[in-house]
Structure formats: C-alpha cells, structure tokens
C-alpha cells in the first residue's frame, strides 16, 4: 500500500471538501464581526448551490466552459440579495437574530426545491449539469510527486477560497473598512459617536456574508455533485458556523477549522476505498463531520473571543 499516495489523496480531498466551508465561514465572519449573528449561512449556501446549478444549466449550451462562472457569479449576487431580509429584520427591526436566521433557513430550503420543481417539470432535483468546474493543474508545480496532486491540482474555486481568506484578513485587519466593521461589532455606540453609520455597516456586512456563503454553496453544486437537490448542502452551513467559532472569528483560524472539518469529510471517501464499509455501516462514517463538530464545540472552545456586541441590536435612542 502506498501511504504517500493515500496521504496525497486525503489532502486533495480535504481541499475539495473544505472549499465550501471556507467560503461560508468567511461569510459568517463578516456578519458576526459586525455584531449580527448569522445562523442563516445554511440557507444562504442552499440559495447559492441552487442558483449556481440553475444558471449554469441555463447557459451551458450557449457558453460552454464559461457557464459555471456565470452560475458562480450569479450565486454570489443571489446570496447577497437573499441575505437582505436578515439585515432588515435584525438591524432595522431589531428582531431576534437567531429567529430571523432560522426563518431564512426554512425559506431557502422550501423556495429552492419549489423553484426546482417548477423549472424541471416536477423533479426534486436539477438534471445533472454537463458542464461544471474542472480541476486545474498548476503547470510545473503539479508535477511534484504526491504534493503536486495534493495541493496543486484543485478546482479553481478552491484557489479562490484561499485567496478570499487572505483578502478577508487584509480587509478586516488592515483597512479602515475593517476597523469600522469590528468597532461596530464590539461597541456600536462608540462607532456611532465618531460618525460611523452602524446600520449601513451591518447591512453591508450581512450582504457580504450572504454573497460569500452563497459562493460556498455554489462550489458544491458546481464541483462535487454537479446538480442541486435537497441534500446538496445538508448542514454544511452549520459546520461553517462551527468553523467560525472554532477559528475564533479570525480568517486564518476559520480556514484552519474548515480544513479540519474537511478532513472529516475526506476520510469518508478514503474509508470507502479501503473497503472498511464492509465492517462499519456507512451511516456511521457519514456522521463523522457532524459528530466532530459537536465534539469540538462542546469540548474545546469557549465563546470568550466573540465580538462583544454580537447578537445585540443597536438602539440609537436608548437612554
């Protein structure tokens, strides 16, 4: 047995499965750093996966290889629009942010399947897409034995995810926008007194959040599954929230946590290769990412580093 190859495959698969989680947890990061709890990442991912699949389906005959890109971009736009009700409810109307997020999750699940049935003549899922993203090998680097396959042979969306981590870190910690974003999440009144528009910042953050989560959702339907159905996302939005918390609301931390949960999913396929499925029911193996999420959340992290104003609506008139 070639352990090098197995490890190489494991890393390769980890990156594939982590991509969606990285996008979505970065999305959560913008929203939560601004003080708005975003449990609706799941729903935003569903909308992204759905929009990505449908738009790619619509353009795959006319645009060919460019169609997934159209789907991907459309998913981002749809996600930011879909996030708007969450901002309206939790920022303007000061509703409970968890309730608003849960409502959005239900809406996404129902709406996407309803529209799928209308578009695809009553089918519960989209037809399999003929064109999706293909893995892209970086010339030269991908030739390196083991490492090349592990790291330099990935979907373009995976490369984008890692770029997004860096960009998010830069934006959040180096730019005036980021400083203001964090101030609004820590002490909105202080931000208000220096002339920062708290509501506008939070709206912006929630919409960026929707966009990134939807991009994450689209990476699933446009890479691994090649279609959209009710279980395309299946809880990855919640795992992304776990990754955000596990990563202590830091882009690099969230990425690390997303990779950690990605390993759990990658092991799934590895186990199948080994034929262990003859001894362990597959259900148990498929449970792995979720069980890990629970264990990590229960055992390892306190919430001490959460933004101080997370979940608290900002009331300008409060005396």
């Amino acid at each position, binding site marked *: 047995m070639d352990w090098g190859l197995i490890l190489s495959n494991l890393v390769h698969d980890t990156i594939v499965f982590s991509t969606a989680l990285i996008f979505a947890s970065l999305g959560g990061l913008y929203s939560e750093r601004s003080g708005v709890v975003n449990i609706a990442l799941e729903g935003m991912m569903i909308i992204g996966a759905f929009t990505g699949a449908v738009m790619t389906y619509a353009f795959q005959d006319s645009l060919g290889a460019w169609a997934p890109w159209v789907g991907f971009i459309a998913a981002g736009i749809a996600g930011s629009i879909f996030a708007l009700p969450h901002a309206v409810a939790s920022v303007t109307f000061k509703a409970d942010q968890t309730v608003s997020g849960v409502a959005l999750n239900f809406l996404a699940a129902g709406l996407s399947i309803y529209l799928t049935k209308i578009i695809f003549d009553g089918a519960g899922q989209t037809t399999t897409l003929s064109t999706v993203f293909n893995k892209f090998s970086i010339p030269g680097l991908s030739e390196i034995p083991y490492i090349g396959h592990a790291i330099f042979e990935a979907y373009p969306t995976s490369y984008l995810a890692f770029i997004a981590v860096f960009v998010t870190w*830069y934006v959040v910690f*180096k*730019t*005036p926008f980021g*400083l*203001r974003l*964090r*101030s609004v999440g*820590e*002490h909105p*009144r*202080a*931000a*208000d*007194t*220096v*002339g*920062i528009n708290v509501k506008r910042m939070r709206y912006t953050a929630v919409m960026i959040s929707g966009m990134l989560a939807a991009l994450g959702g689209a990476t699933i339907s446009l890479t691994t599954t090649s279609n959209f159905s009710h279980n395309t996302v299946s809880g990855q939005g919640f795992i992304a929230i776990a990754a955000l918390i596990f990563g202590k609301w830091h882009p690099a931390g969230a990425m690390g946590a997303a990779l950690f949960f990605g390993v759990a999913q990658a092991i799934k396929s590895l186990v199948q290769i080994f034929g262990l499925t003859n001894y362990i029911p597959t259900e148990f193996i498929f449970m792995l990412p979720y069980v890990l999420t629970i264990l990590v959340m229960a055992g390892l992290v306190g919430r001490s580093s959460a933004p*101080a104003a997370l979940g608290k609506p900002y009331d*300008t*008139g409060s*005396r």
Partner: protein
Amino acid sequence: MNSVKKVVEMRGITKRFPGIIANDSITLSVGKGEIHALLGENGAGKSTLMNILFGLYQPDEGEILINEKVVEITTPRIANELGIGMVHQHFMLVETFTVTENIVLGNEPKNGLKIDIQSAEKAVEKLSNQYGLKVDPRAKIQDISVGMQQRVEILKTLYRGADILIFDEPTAVLTPQEIHELIEIMHNLVKEGKTIILITHKLKEIMAVCDAVTIIRRGKVIDSVLVKDTNPDDLAAKMVGREVNFRVDKSEARPKETILAVEKLTAMGNRGVNALNNLSLEVRAGEILGIAGVDGNGQSELIEVLTGLRKATNGRVLLNGKEITNQSPRNISESGLSHIPEDRHKRGLVLDFTMSENMVLETYFHPTFCKNGFLDYGAIDKHAAKLIEEFDVRTPSIYTPARALSGGNQQKAIIAREVDKNPDLLIAAQPTRGLDVGAIEFIHRRLIDQRDQGKAVLLLSLELDEVINVSDRIAVIYEGVIVGIVDAKSTTEQELGLMMSGGKVMQGGGNDE
C-alpha cells in the same frame, strides 16, 4: 463675561421623552475659553442637553448657535465637524483595539487601501505631548488604567479638531490623584484655546476649576452664575431645591463581638487572574466598615465571594464563627447575611416581577409564604404592603412591576427587603449610586440605624465622601488586598487617595487636622 465671544448658545431647548419632559425650555450660553459647569442631580436633564448638543438626540423645540451661527446638529459627525467633542461618562472605547485605533476610528489616515498606522501613532504621540496627556499609542484599551482610558477619550476629541469639549461626569471613575491630574489637563486645554463644558453633580469640582455654572433642576434652568459670586451651600440649595445637610449625623460607634471574619481569601476574577490575594478583614457588631478603593481592585469579587456568587480558591469566610465559605447563596442568606447589590437591576430585583413578588425573592420558600408547595399570595401581598408602607417606597401599588419605579424607590424597596430579614451582617455595595440627594440621605440614615441596632454593616462605595461620612472604620483595597485600615474620623482624602493608588501609609500619620 458679555464681552467674550459666545461659542455655544442653546436657546429654549425642549426635549420630551414618553412620560417626562427631560429638558424644558433650557437656555445655556458658554463663552470662549471658559470652563462652564452644568450642575444638577441625576435625572435633572444635564446629559440629555449635552447629548442634544452632541447630535445624539434631536430637540423638540429650540435652536442651537455655535460660534454665533444657527446650526442643526443631527448626528455626532456633524457635531465633530462643528468642533464639538464629548468625553463620555461610559467611555466610548473599543476594548480590544489599541489606543491609536480608537483615536483614529472613523478618520483613519490611509496609505493606499491600508490604514497608515505608523503616521496615526505619530499623530497621537504629537497630540499627547502637546496637551500633556500621557498615553501609550500601542497599548490595548483593556490593558490600561481607567485614567489613561479617559485621556484616550480626550485625545479622540482633540484628534478630530474639537474646540468645544464636553466632559460628562469625568471624575466619577477616578482616584483623587487622577482627579487632580484631570483638573490640570483641563487648565492646559483652556490655555490652548479650548472651551469646556463640565457635567457634574460634585460641588467641589465646580469650585476648583470652573468659571461659570448653570444649575438645572427637573429639566429647567434654575440659575446661571459666575463661580466667584457663589458658594457650595448656595449651589447645593439651588440644585436640590431646599437646604441640604451634607453631614451625616451619627453617634459614636459601640462595636462589640466580631460578626464577619474574612481570613486570607483568594479568588479568581473574570480575566482568569486572582482578583483577591490573601485578603483578610473583620467587621464587628455595631460598626460600619467602609471599603474604599478605585473601581476594579477586587471590591466586586469580594462581595461576590461573601454572598456565595463566586467561588473562593483559598481562605475562609466566617459569619458568627460559622464557616460559610463557598456555600450556596441561599445558605449564606439564611445564615444571617443581607446584601444590597451593586447593580440593582441585575441582582437586586427581577424587573418584570411585581413589587410584591420582589419582596420575597429570598424568603418565598419560608413556611410563612409557602404552604404545601404553593405560594401563599395573600401572605406575600400583606408582607409587601407592610414593607412598602414602612420604608416609604413610592409605588402605585404592590402589583406594579419593579421596572416602573424610579431608581431611588427601587433601592428603598431592596433595603426594605434586606433589612426586614433582620440580618447580623448587612452588605451594602454602592447603595446610593445614581440616586438623588433625598434618597441618599434616607439610605445613609437606614445604614446607621442598622449599626445602632447592633448589626454589622459592610459598606462598599466608589464615592470617597460617602465612605468617609458613613463609615466608622475604613479599609482600603488595592489589587485584591486590604492595604490599610484607618479611622474614618481622623483620616483625610489625601491619605486615602494615596493608599487607593497603592502607596503605603505610615501608621499614625495623617493627623493633620
């Protein structure tokens, strides 16, 4: 005063909140280079007026002139642009940010897309040198002292080019030494051409730094006078509306046996470091022991350990010789300890319960109020009616939710409940915070009554005057230890202030009166 250019004029400002008129046709005029005090009791409407000037609230009526031009200040940003800056009572600082980040927030110097943090730090250093405001530009807010945080607040306004600075109760959180430094800073600011409006209810400060004072009572301007033409008694009478007696009359204490003994108590604070370090003290029957100290030196943790809300990691607490260390709050309460908590909204009352229910929060399970597992509301209501009558709690009825009462009446209700338990030890933590002079007099009277009835009283207060006037002995707490115990009659504010900031005092010193 009339020859000086008016930088701020507020004319006929009226602001209504549901149920009350916070500002009733207020007129205020401040000359350039002046330190102008806004004097009034809590809830008189001072902060509302200044929040209007700073753009946080909009007035319902009236107009504002800045530098003799009519302006509309709808947001703090516009106030900033007009050169108005505010040093808030509760600092508007982001704890996890550095000093520099807090100062430049909203007006960040840029280098491409990035914040130019180097030039920001230089600008902060330059400003702090110019005005003698010592700060470390790279320190995080959560790691610096309250005094330095306040200097950051001042720098924030100066960085934005403020010429008119509003200080909202700036001395509430400072030690006497820090207050002294602040007064120095204010003089420096005026020398540099700034104008200062000082919101306060402390007469001493007004006499020490201000040029003029406007007195507000119940939303109305009572008078506006020059400080050199007035005196503290006159100001107090105008602020309260009647003659005020600042002295607390009390007889000599006659302490008896030890009620509370705290031995080498150690406990962890919220930040994971020890908030109490081997702290020992004793309170005897028939005396009031006051604890003086700057906020955050372990006072809250001490009270929490004594009342069972926080676990001690080491040491013992004895009440009447019986060990109560780390017992449940109910056990401790049943052993004869009553507690007037620091935060009456969080720990004193359940705001949405009726007054009647609030009166039995600690005793509802006693056979008097609880029959066969059911609450006896007849008995509970009778009990509440009796207490409310006895302690003169002004409430529409015993079924009114606690939330609807004024702060003073809420506090009276808590004291009624705690005193009625007939405790051996009464702990009063900041019992008069946010209350007006009338309520303060009442509460001080009650504490002394308890003492005279032979109870032990432990008083914790951040107001040095209160500690000195009410206590018999004063223990000074600094970084989780008692650094000294002095006699309240012979000590001075200077002596206490020195101990509060960690300086040791030689025994027998401080008899300079």
